[in-house]
């Protein structure tokens, strides 16, 4: 049931009583089955946008439809179609993981038998079967996040909202969560709207990335396209012997134009993109040229952010007022 | 920083400064005032019970308890303050800097007395507004002396607990015993009109004797004051040892 699985946003605005607009007229479109990454520093407006799209906060102006339903006029239908794991893992420390799932399932109308089955299934899916009957108070940050995700999936939503899902997690938990999100999108066809301040996360998970800064979208495309817009990747090779420098330069020169490099090294801009690195290695090998060091430099999404806003993404949000405080009001 | 009195003076000065920058320093008077209003307002007819012959009237009867409660709670609050100073790290710096650490205890005690003077005045003013008469023969200094001793005792108790626990957990551990001591006493009627288990408990409670003597002073009819002062002095002595014990433990913990 339901019309589509996508998200459409038109000129969405959210103002608060004091201060500038948290969300200043954004337009975006997420295709069904897509993983859309919303990337920006703290205070950029990511969480406020998510709160509006999940109907927890009314917009000041603008429209949006989620799963084909209008967020203002068809709130209950929107909520029935989405799952959300928001910034704070909102859990009850006195309940066990299993009890959380049963409660969620009960509220979504699953029968007693279905609750047990679904609860067990989700616990296994997120790897919490062992801890299922322990109180959440004793869970680590990673475990809470996983439970959060499981709770969001209880009613098999078509669209999933994840607000900074891996902030504060250790690398293993982060990878595990990434794997699950990818799987959900690929195998189950779930549309994922994900906000993050981590470049890597957006790069790895998202099909398309929207970069938001100070309430506005400053760039939107696939990660590769965004980076390519800034510049092509380059390769820098340091010859094993000084004498081989010319040979290295000759080989590399076939893959693109030469650019400034470190003293003693040779660098070219790869006209064929980052995949060309493998060809470079093969060519060097074929010509029997030895290198002490070979490095691939790609522009990062941070470079994209820098180019668009004049600021670096890392540390960009520190002087902003925490927008979450206002969002909770 | 050097010397017992210099340390005490510095600590007291800082603490008193904190009072004047934060009007919440009068908080210890809040519950006593509330109880005073509730009891002196609602229970005056208890003064009609046969055998209740307190000369100064029921309001004055309640006032004395409210006053002693306020100064005792003031001591407790100083304990909270010390616990807070341990939590935010100030106490450690203080102990490192102070040449004579006993002076720290004295300093907090002095500050507590300063506060007790102010909360005590507040309670007294409220009582006067409510219509408490000052009958002739009022022995001012005796009453004040007992109140001060009660304050010092409570402060020393609170300080000891605070230095022992060094966290905000000290709060309930300080507050509850003081509360119990204040209530297991002739709160509503004189000791001779109590019966049953509460009479036995009140008799054993040293605070009872301080309370009764203080009430006697207010009515101009001091009774058993020597005993009351002895008990107070003993309490202060014992609790001073307790406070020093707490200090030693705090020192050892570093």
């Amino acid at each position, binding site marked *: 049931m339901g019309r589509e699985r996508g998200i459409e946003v038109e000129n969405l605005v959210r103002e608060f009583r004091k201060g500038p607009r948290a969300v200043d007229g954004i337009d975006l479109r997420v295709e069904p089955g897509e993983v859309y990454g919303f990337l920006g520093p703290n205070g950029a407006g990511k969480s406020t946008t998510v709160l509006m799209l999940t109907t927890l906060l009314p917009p000041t102006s603008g429209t949006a439809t989620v799963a084909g339903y209008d967020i203002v006029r068809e709130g209950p239908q929107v909520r029935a179609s989405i799952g959300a794991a928001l910034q704070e893992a909102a859990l009850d420390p006195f309940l066990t993981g299993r009890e959380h799932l049963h409660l969620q399932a009960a509220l979504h*109308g699953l029968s007693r038998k279905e609750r047990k089955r679904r609860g067990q299934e989700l616990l296994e899916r997120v790897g919490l079967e062992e801890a299922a009957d322990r109180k959440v108070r004793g869970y680590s940050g990673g475990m809470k996040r996983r439970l959060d995700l499981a709770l969001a999936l209880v009613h098999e939503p078509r669209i999933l909202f994840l607000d900074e899902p891996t902030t504060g997690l250790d690398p293993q938990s982060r990878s595990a969560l990434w794997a699950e999100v990818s799987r959900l999108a690929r195998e189950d066809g779930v549309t994922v709207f994900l906000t993050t301040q981590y470049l890597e996360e957006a790069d790895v998970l998202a099909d398309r990335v929207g970069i938001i800064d100070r309430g506005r979208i400053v760039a939107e495309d696939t990660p590769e396209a965004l980076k390519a817009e800034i510049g092509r990747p380059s390769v820098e090779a340091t010859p094993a012997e000084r004498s081989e420098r010319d040979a290295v330069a000759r080989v590399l020169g076939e893959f693109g134009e030469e650019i400034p490099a470190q003293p003693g090294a040779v660098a070219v801009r790869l006209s064929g993109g980052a995949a060309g690195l493998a060809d470079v290695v093969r060519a060097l090998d074929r010509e029997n040229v030895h290198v002490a060091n070979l490095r691939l430099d790609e522009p990062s999404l941070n470079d994209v952010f820098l180019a668009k806003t004049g600021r670096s993404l890392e540390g960009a949000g520190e002087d902003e007022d925490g927008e979450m405080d206002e969002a909770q009001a | 920083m050097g010397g017992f009195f210099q340390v005490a003076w510095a600590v007291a000065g800082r603490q008193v400064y904190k009072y004047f920058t934060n009007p919440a320093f009068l908080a210890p008077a809040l519950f006593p005032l509330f109880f005073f209003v509730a009891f002196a307002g609602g229970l005056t007819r208890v003064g009609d019970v046969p055998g209740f012959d307190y000369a100064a009237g029921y309001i004055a009867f309640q006032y004395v308890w409210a006053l002693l409660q306020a100064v005792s709670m003031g001591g407790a609050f100083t304990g909270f303050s010390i616990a807070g100073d341990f939590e935010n790290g100030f106490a450690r710096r203080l102990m490192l800097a102070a040449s004579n650490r006993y002076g720290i205890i004295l300093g907090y005690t002095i500050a507590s007395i300063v506060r007790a003077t102010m909360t005590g005045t507040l309670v007294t003013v409220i009582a006067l507004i409510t219509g408490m008469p000052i009958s002739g023969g009022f022995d001012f200094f005796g009453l004040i002396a007992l109140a001060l001793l009660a304050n010092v005792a409570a402060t020393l108790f609170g300080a000891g607990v605070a230095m022992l626990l060094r966290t905000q957990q000290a709060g309930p551990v300080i507050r509850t015993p003081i509360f119990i001591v204040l209530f297991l006493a002739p709160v509503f009627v004189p000791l001779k009109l109590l019966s049953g288990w509460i009479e036995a408990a009140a008799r054993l409670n040293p605070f009872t004797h301080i309370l009764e003597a203080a009430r006697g002073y207010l009515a101009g009819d001091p009774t058993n004051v020597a005993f009351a002062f002895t008990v107070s002095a003993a309490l202060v002595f014992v609790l001073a040892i307790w406070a020093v014990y707490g200090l030693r433990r705090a020192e050892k913990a570093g």
Partner: protein
Amino acid sequence: MRGSSFITQVLAIARRSTVRTMRQPAVIVSALLFPMMFFSINASGLDAASRIPGFPADSYLDFAFAFPLIQASLFGAVTAGADLARDIESGFFDRLSLTPLRPVAMLGGMLAGVVALGLLQGVVFLTVGFLMGVNIDSGFFGMIVIVLLTVLVALGFGGIGAILAIRTGSVEAVESAFPLFFVAIFLSSINLPRDLIEQDWFRFIATMNPISYLVEGIRSLVITGWDFHALVLGFGFAFIIVVVSIGGAAASLKTRVA
């Protein structure tokens, strides 16, 4: 996916409230212990008051028995309100809002927890009171009515706690209301009957204070037996408080949830 029925929702939330309270033994113990302790000290300390000319009971213990019941209801209500505020603060409330859970069902579930605690307190206090020598003039049936009225009072206070929680969304704000309620209890006829309050201003406040009538309703069942007048006033005020507070809470919920 289909939604769930109203009853299912209320039961699910009520179950959670109850489980959560049961898992905090410290809360239960203080909810039962402190009122009893205070009652014990108060009652024996004021025993002499029963000798005031015109005092309506033989023992002050019987007279003051309403006190722990009222105080305990208040405590239960503040705790439930604080729990709701904590849910709002932690975002759990948002999570629940995203389910088909109807706001009124959420309120109903939370209040069901208050009622359950109120019932427990009523039964425990009656038992302890009986052991302490309290004599209920209205007999066994009167005890049931006492529990009923206590639960109603708990419900009313619970509604007020809910309003505070929903309006402020802050645990600290709700808990700081506790002293105010405590004061309100004392500015009533809880310690002495209204006609034995000498100070005019105090008697006036006590007469205006609805808590006086709640107290007198319960008290009448203990010391008088069946006093129709007192019971009508007691139940009447309890009902009014319940309707106003729960209505207010439901209305406040509507403004918080889209």
